[in-house]
């Protein structure tokens, strides 16, 4: 069973396939979420961490959208783009 590749309909999942991508995923998560070992239990935990992480990134983007939109509302009408570009060149 462990050697079986995922069918095109994806009805079965081989551990090897998941572990391969899981290890790459591990390196993307914040350091506190990293786990050693590749047992099923830690795979589940890692996937759960990934779900939480994606949700927290979404919340951060929401929050940053709020802040950015407030900033843009207060910017000078004549040079909105210049302001931003200047800030980037710092």
């Amino acid at each position, binding site marked *: *069973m462990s050697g079986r590749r*995922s*069918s*095109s*309909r*994806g*009805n*079965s*999942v081989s551990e090897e*396939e*998941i572990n391969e*991508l*899981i290890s*790459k*995923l591990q390196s*993307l998560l914040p350091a506190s979420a990293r786990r050693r070992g590749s*047992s*099923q*239990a830690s*795979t*589940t935990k890692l*996937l*759960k961490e*990934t*779900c939480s*992480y*994606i*949700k927290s*990134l*979404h919340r*951060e*983007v*929401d929050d*940053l*959208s*709020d*802040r*950015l*939109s407030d*900033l*843009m*509302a*207060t*910017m*000078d*009408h004549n040079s*909105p*783009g210049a*302001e*931003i*570009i*200047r*800030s*980037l060149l*710092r």
Partner: protein
Amino acid sequence: MHAPTSSRKFKKAFMEQLLVSLQVAGLTSKTMGLQERRDAVRLSSDVAMAVARGRAAPWARALVARHASERRNEALLRRILGGAGYESAAAAGRSRKIVRRSHGACRRKRIKSSVMAASSGSNGGAMVARRMVKKRLQVLRKLVPGGEALHGSFSLLSQVLDYVACLKTQVELMQRLCKGSPAAA
């Protein structure tokens, strides 16, 4: 297969597209409402990320399609993407292949996999863990744009990897814009 999503080239393209989109959105207008402005910033950021990533990534196409499927976004998206770009994004938003599979297929797939878990193997612990992995993958499907239209766990996890890398860049670039502005102090 994995594009260098944290590369300088990607960040540069993302930032450039972001600046263009923010300008085009006319966000300094005093007449724009709070919610409207905030939604326009979010849309600009999402679209910039998707455009910088490129049409090759299913999640990128699905993200733009999702925004295009709401009528109130049409005017802004037309300005950002151009007429042709908007039309193809709106068409993708209507197409169930890109955005989601039919509900029937999803139900069938879930039943099938739990049946497989129950009948396969003799190790009870592995069966339960395998089912939990499946559960987690289902949640991920909903979190990644277009995840529900993806076939197989391998492609889902590939998209998760790609999407998470780009999300981190999105946060980084938006933080830069917020910090950099003198008005932020």
